[in-house]
């Protein structure tokens, strides 16, 4: 068994690297998508910067429809669409696109909630000196919500690791696929638990980093 683990070591590190790669890129794309949709939800809400009942209703309905779909089902349901879009339904690129789309809608709620913690008075103060909506989003709203947003994205990171692992089921790489192929299917719990341990370490590291950064930004 020791030999088995030794033999699998290079593959384990490669899988860990793949997981990081998938999670990193989905955090970038999904995070950006979520930020945009989240800001959209925030600013179009009634009484906000550019209230717009129709846009808010559409965004809200979209988020409420896609967000509750269990990821494993979403993954297989949109596979044909992804194949149309990028030419393949499996592999890391397909996985990254799928996760980014699904995550955007989940992240948008996290973003919206954190933006709502910004004191409306601060926004009013910015309006009172003649700042327009775009400037307010850029120079007041996002900076004021930055601390909570960091914590929100650290939370999101954990969810992305979860999604990336599940994606191992449909031809994605990474620690999920590794644990399934060499641990679960070969009746080797030690391999599975090694993958688990690595994921736990990864998540702990990111959460610690996020907490420290948020603490610095929030100065408390």
């Amino acid at each position, binding site marked *: 068994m020791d030999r088995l683990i030794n033999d699998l070591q290079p593959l384990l590190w490669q899988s860990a690297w793949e997981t990081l790669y998938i999670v990193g890129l989905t955090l970038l794309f999904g995070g950006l998508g979520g930020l945009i949709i989240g800001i959209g939800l925030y600013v179009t809400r009634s009484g906000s910067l550019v209230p717009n009942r129709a846009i808010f209703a559409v965004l809200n309905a979209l988020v409420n429809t896609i967000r509750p779909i269990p990821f494993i089902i979403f993954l297989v349901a949109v596979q044909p669409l992804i194949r149309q879009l990028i030419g393949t339904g499996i592999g890391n690129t397909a996985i990254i696109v799928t996760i980014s789309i699904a995550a955007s809608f989940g992240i948008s709620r996290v973003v919206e909630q954190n933006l709502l913690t910004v*004191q409306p*008075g*601060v926004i*009013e*103060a*910015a*309006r*009172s*000196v*003649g*700042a*327009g909506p775009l*400037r307010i989003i850029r*120079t*007041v709203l996002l*900076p*004021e919500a*930055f601390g909570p947003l960091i914590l929100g994205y650290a939370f999101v990171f954990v969810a992305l690791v979860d999604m990336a692992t599940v994606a191992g089921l449909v031809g994605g790489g990474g620690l999920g696929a590794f644990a399934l192929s060499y641990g679960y299917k070969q009746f080797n719990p030690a391999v599975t638990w090694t993958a688990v341990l690595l994921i736990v370490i990864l998540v702990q590291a990111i959460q610690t980093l996020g907490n420290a950064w948020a603490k610095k*930004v929030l*100065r*408390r």
Partner: protein
Amino acid sequence: MPIVALRDVSKVYPARGRNEKEVRAIESVDLDIEAGEIYGIIGYSGAGKSTLVRLVNALERATSGSIQVNGTEITSLPERELRKLRLGIGMIFQQFNLFTSKTVWKNIEYPLEVAGVPVAERNARISDLLHFVGLADKAGNFPDQLSGGQKQRVGIARALATSPSILLADEATSALDPETTLEVLALLRRVNEEFGTTIIVITHEMEVIKSIAHKVAVMEKGRVIETGTVFEVFSDPQTQASKRFVSTVVRAVPEAEELAVLRAKHPGRIVTLSFADGNVSQAAVFLEFGRQGVGFELIYGGINDVQGRTFGHLTLALTGDDPTIDAALETVRESVAVTEVK
């Protein structure tokens, strides 16, 4: 020409739900505010004063009526033009509303950045303002490191950054303790005197009006029910609401309950003398009582100083026989208003 002129202005918020009524926050308000004035607007919470002040910088749009600021009709201006207008109108808030993610320096810089002022010019201006509000040593601090009074001074510096001709103060001292309130009010008075800034002060505290305002409007249920110079309203309030506000800072005539207590102690005749600025001195009146052999005891009242003018009501318990008292009152009436308290 007034710097701010409101004509028949109303603000109605549409009903939120099917079972809710529309809210008539402001109802046909007329108001003229002259350049260089400190104009107080007082009312209980919900009277509409915060909405009213937000109509002036168009943070809230009027439903109907005309609002002229610096001679420009603002009710028809598009949002883009309103942003330019707001650069000329500073605003400070009850909760200060400082940007918590920015330093004191950056807070004050913000309006200058919005106005597109070049950096070198900004720096000089921020420096000046920090000295003016007495916070030159706090430039690098964040708002959460400041006391309430310091936060409001930053708020004032930020509001003044673009040298606005009008400053709106929305309950600016309501979150501060009495001592800090006086400091902030003194600062606002300096702003008015040194820069000639027109200041519109919203408050529910008569003390604030008495301390800095030149003119005052009393609001109730969305309407302006009384306006006048602070001296006029304090010395001779016309409406019930005004009388209640004035009574919070001026001891005028005893209310029914107080009177009952006084009556028990002083069974004789009780009169209230009302002194107004410029007419007969108290000494002359008291001398007259003495000369005519009427004893008196001061049992209620006070003399007030508003904007350097004095007025007040003194309630006296008189002793002596009726004809003597009548004769004395006859003489005193020639110089001061006398009300017999029943």
